[in-house]
């Protein structure tokens, strides 16, 4: 599914990723944990193709295709989905318009017919109900005036509509209370399937109680410094990141 080899990247001349390796197979859930400033969010942005994140070495392939050569929109159309830590607000552009544009673009790339407006409205309502967002949120500006939890649920709804093969959740737990966290985690779990993979980026172990990973990686100073099963997350929670940093020094 996703193969990252020796990935190095910098932002504004500062090296952030310093040779990262990871291999995600179909259906797997990988958690990436690490202290602040380790490069967790950078990894998500580099994979999603954000401007200003310059790859200096290494490779990243999705379904065997070189991800790093593609524009951001192309990556999304190929099945990559980044759930943002801080989804932006877009006043003046309705959620419905935005979702339709997004779904049409991705479906077109997959050779599928666009949904008719009627079909799409029905589908969008269904999904908004599934993530517990009132239907009138579809008429509002994208994320406009949404609470932190509502924004994350909106991300989840987009994920459901786009049916990506690789989902990267960037600190999806940040700013969520326990109830909202459960709603989001249930939504993610419902999307788990043998041909869909997840990279769950998080600072805290808490989220992993709900989204149980197959592998846990610790990212520190731009590299994976330790990998293990889900029990690694519990160890980290107990010992703190200084335990890892102490080991690597």
């Amino acid at each position, binding site marked *: 599914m996703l193969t990252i080899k020796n990935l190095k990247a910098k932002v504004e001349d500062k090296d952030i990723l310093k040779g990262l390796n990871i291999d995600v197979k179909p259906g797997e859930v990988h958690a990436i944990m690490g202290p602040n400033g380790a490069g967790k969010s950078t990894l998500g942005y580099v994979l*999603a*193709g*954000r*401007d200003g994140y310059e790859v200096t070495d290494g490779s990243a392939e999705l379904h065997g295709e070189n991800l790093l050569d593609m*524009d*951001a*929109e192309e990556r*999304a*159309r190929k099945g990559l*989905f*980044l759930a*943002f830590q801080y*989804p*932006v607000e*877009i*006043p*003046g*552009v309705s959620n419905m*318009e*935005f979702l*339709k*544009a*997004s779904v*049409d*673009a*991705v479906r077109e*790339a997959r050779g599928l017919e666009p949904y008719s407006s009627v079909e799409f409205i029905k589908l969008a309502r269904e999904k908004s109900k599934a993530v517990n967002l009132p239907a009138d949120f579809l008429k509002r*500006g*994208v994320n406009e005036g949404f609470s932190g939890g509502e924004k994350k649920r909106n991300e989840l709804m*987009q994920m459901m509509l*786009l049916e990506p093969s690789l989902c990267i959740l960037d600190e999806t737990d940040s700013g969520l209370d326990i109830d909202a966290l459960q709603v989001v985690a249930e939504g993610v779990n419902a999307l788990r399937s043998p041909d869909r993979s997840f990279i769950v980026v998080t600072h805290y172990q808490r989220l992993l109680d709900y989204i149980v990973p197959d592998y846990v990686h610790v990212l520190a100073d731009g590299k994976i410094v330790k990998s293990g099963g889900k029990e690694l997350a519990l160890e980290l929670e107990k010992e703190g990141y200084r335990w890892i940093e102490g080991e690597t020094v």
Partner: protein
Amino acid sequence: MRTELNIDKALAALADQPKPDWLVHWQQQGQQVLSQTAWPTRKTENWKYTSLKSLQGISWQAETPDAVADGIRFVDWQEISIDFVNGRLVNTPKLPDGVTLHRLSDCSEAEGLTFLQKVDSERAGFEFDALNQSLLTEGYWLKVAKDIQVAQPIHLNFISSGADVVTSTQVLVELESGARATIAETFSATAEARVLVNANTALYVGDNAQLTHYHLLLEEGEVRHIGRVTGSLSRFASLSSFHMAVGGILKRKDITIRHRGEGAELSLNGVYLPKGHEVIDYHTTLEHEVPNCTSSEIFRGIMADHGKAVFNGRIHIHKDAQKSVAEMNNRNLLLSDHAEIDTKPELEIYADDVRCAHGATIAQLDKSLLFYFQARGISKKEAEVMLSFGFINELLDALNDQPVQTLLRPLLATLFAQKQADLARHIL
């Protein structure tokens, strides 16, 4: 201005037209002022950022008979449409009870002088008023009688056509006390038109009357449009006036609204969208002459390509206008490195118990917003169109005015896509 602006042919044509003495006198007065008025240059404060070069080097003439256009429809609205070609009324629709439309040329001397006096009393040193006066052969007086509520919008549909044609028009809209109406003025031009449109509108909103007004400058091509809109609000009058300018070579509109009766309410909003090498200039002045009036003004602009816009928004709170509430906001989006906006909000406050605020911003499309679209598979180009439209749509949404939205959304969607229809397919 006579040396710089060549209107000799248009003036000569005036002599051939039969008209009452009082109108001749009015024109002559204007011509005198015109010849005494200095040609505005960059050194003229009012014209600092807008050049009038595109008016020069052309011998402007009055309309010639062959320069008549067949009615163009820019909008499809369930309205009563009154059509004008180069300032001439070309149809006579049936108007609802209590609504009358008089031509200045049909007025008695007393009525005519009243019309001109009403128009004249609203002036405030705008150079092109003298041009309007000099060439004015016809005016239109739309009146809504006391307590009449007109449900259907009334559309004044102005069409320009012909080569080197200058047209001066004066519309006077008068709502008597307690009346309620929606009046939309649209300006369009035939594809080959090469014109100078000099269109003035005066709005009088009586006690407790409510006027919803649109003034949309939609001419594309070789069109210069220079004119003014004035408004006078009586006690507890309410005016909502929406403006828009797209296309053409140069568009300049001076808008002056006066609060003359206590408790009056104004909502003044506008959108300007210069692209190519177009120049659009809005000068607005809100005169709070009496206490307890409110004004809210929002103008937004998007400048693309080499497009340029000027926004000058002035709020003037007079000495006795206590408890005035006035807010003005101007936001601008620059889509290209070659685009330009000159914005200048001005507050002049002479009363001490008022609440006033103003603000102006200039920005480019937010990269983090663009990335969000792209991360969802939407192309950058489509994202730009959707974001630009959203910037204007945010204002339309805030107005919460159904006609504005049904009228303008399709128009704007087409405009933003710049002939690439698929880029606008997700707007609407």
